[in-house]
């Protein structure tokens, strides 16, 4: 390994770098270690969440109905926390260190603080998981008061958020220092710009979470009171905006994957950066759609936040929806795939897991997750969908089919680079995005349709077998629930395939310098 030590401008200390033989990036070894631990922790959270997902999916499949009611609600809480918070944020932190350091040839600022951030996040994550499993926090990811959890649950949540805030600050400091020390020329790469967007959104997201959760912690300890409406406003400033962090990170990764797999170049940097900028300004207002059917908020507030402002963020997404495929098309046409309208698409490297993950992610997010979100965010339409399984269908298409799948595709490139090992079981990697993507398409569409027929979310028994006042259920709902169960099983298989490849690469692949970026050639 070629290692070089570069002096730091201000502190006089030296950071040790290695030069990646493939990309010629200089990688700060301290940052690399943090990338590895954060990514591995993220994958462990994904594994836990995935196991819970399978059990939950098999419970909502009416003919299987695997879990008992307490276990169902408990694992649903754990599933939400592990997937929406721990897997995403740990992976994003790994992504921030990768973008801020490897892509900019920069050193990591505050290595010790970065480890403190990791320790806080890990401690928080473990605490939350343990408390949930002790059955003391059956309150779901959203933890609406006055439904009360053990104080330690909120403590874990807050610890994690503080750690994540710290990691974002370290990333920002790293960017500043990279500029000051002149580690790169001109403007930062688009991918890093996207990650910067994500980090900025993350900062006010996490602060909003702190505003929601600290009074709640005090209330759970018997100090003061929490207004359910005010909690929801602040909580969703965290809960939904956190998904916008995922969105920004995902789009940064889309651009990256397009570059890595077909050599695509952003069609117009200005337009793409403008679209990211729209996110910073407007997308946090999307979280308002959770509150549309709440009592206590006026018409004006509901309309301002869900219509004009939110649609500006939608405009940002529509711009990306054009510029990413356009970049791919341009690159493919330049390579000579000029036949007909879609010759470039048919001849694309579909066997590359990075590319198929990118395309499935684009499709599931673009055609299922995004449009359903636009519909759900529209004021009056929220009446039709609030808290039904349509919501669940929507965010499984965005966060899982979109973000998680993009992260998986990204992992196929980053893991060989940072582990310095070739990818394990490439055949499995090749098929993984297909299995996972198809499972999620089935899952999210059937969830949405079941919700359209009235299926409530977070509900153990949609057949309503033991209720005092009997209710009528639309017969087609049962079929949709069954389809969603099948989709969940297929998706869980795809998730397991990813875990096998990722963990296998770390454990079973021989360590060596990768010869090429492509996981199929490495």
């Amino acid at each position, binding site marked *: 390994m070629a290692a070089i030590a570069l002096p730091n401008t201000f502190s006089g200390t030296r950071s040790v770098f290695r030069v990646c033989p493939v990309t010629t990036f200089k990688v700060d070894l301290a940052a690399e270690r943090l990338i590895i631990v954060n990514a591995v922790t993220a994958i462990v959270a994904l594994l836990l969440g995935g196991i819970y997902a399978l059990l939950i999916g098999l419970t909502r499949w009416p003919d299987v109905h695997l879990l008992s009611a307490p276990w169902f609600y408990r694992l649903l809480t754990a599933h939400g926390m592990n997937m929406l918070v721990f897997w995403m944020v740990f992976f994003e932190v790994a992504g921030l260190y990768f973008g801020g350091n490897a892509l900019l040839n920069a050193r990591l600022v505050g290595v010790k603080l970065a480890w403190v951030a990791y320790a806080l996040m890990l401690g928080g994550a473990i605490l939350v998981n343990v408390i949930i499993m002790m059955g003391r926090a059956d309150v779901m990811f959203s933890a609406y008061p006055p439904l009360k959890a053990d104080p330690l649950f909120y403590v874990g949540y807050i610890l994690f958020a503080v750690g994540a805030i710290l990691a974002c600050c370290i990333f920002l400091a790293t960017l500043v220092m990279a500029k000051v020390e002149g580690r790169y020329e001109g403007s930062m790469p688009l991918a890093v710009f996207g990650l910067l967007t994500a980090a900025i959104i993350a900062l006010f997201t996490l602060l909003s979470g702190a505003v929601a959760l600290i009074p709640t912690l005090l209330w759970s300890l018997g100090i003061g009171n929490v207004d359910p409406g005010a909690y929801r406003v602040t909580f969703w400033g965290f809960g939904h905006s956190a998904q916008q962090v995922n969105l920004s990170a995902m789009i940064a990764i889309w651009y990256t994957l397009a570059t890595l797999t077909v050599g695509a170049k952003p069609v117009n940097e200005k337009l793409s950066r403008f679209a990211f900028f729209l996110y910073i300004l407007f997308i946090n207002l999307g979280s308002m759609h959770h509150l549309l059917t709440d009592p206590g908020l006026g018409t004006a507030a509901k309309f301002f936040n869900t219509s004009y402002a939110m649609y500006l963020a939608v405009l940002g997404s529509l711009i990306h929806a054009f510029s990413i495929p356009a970049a791919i*098309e341009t690159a493919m046409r330049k390579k000579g795939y000029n036949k007909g309208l*879609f010759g470039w698409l048919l001849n694309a490297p579909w066997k590359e897991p990075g590319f198929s993950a990118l395309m499935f992610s684009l499709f599931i997010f673009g055609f299922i997750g995004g449009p359903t979100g636009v519909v759900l965010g529209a004021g009056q339409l929220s009446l039709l969908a609030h808290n039904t399984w349509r919501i669940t269908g929507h965010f499984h298409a965005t966060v899982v089919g979109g973000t998680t799948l993009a992260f998986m595709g990204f992992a196929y490139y980053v893991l060989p680079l940072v582990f310095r090992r070739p990818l394990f079981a490439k055949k499995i990697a090749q098929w993984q995005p297909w299995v996972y993507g198809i499972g999620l398409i089935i899952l999210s569409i059937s969830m949405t349709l079941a919700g359209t027929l009235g299926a409530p979310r977070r509900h153990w028994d949609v057949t309503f077998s033991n209720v005092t006042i009997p209710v009528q259920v639309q017969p087609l709902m049962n079929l949709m629930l069954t389809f969603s169960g099948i989709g969940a099983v297929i998706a869980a298989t795809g998730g397991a395939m990813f875990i096998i490849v990722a963990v296998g690469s770390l454990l079973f692949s021989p360590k060596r310098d990768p010869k090429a970026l492509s996981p199929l050639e490495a």
Partner: protein
Amino acid sequence: MDNKHSGPETPGTVVLTFLLLLWIGFLYFGNWITLSQAWGIR
């Protein structure tokens, strides 16, 4: 490619994105129609 603007020809993408718009419109209006059949609520 000239340097004045970044205008490559991407007919496939144009078709795909306009399909996307149609699809969003279909979902959006489909839901408004459903809503108009429900009770009066204010």
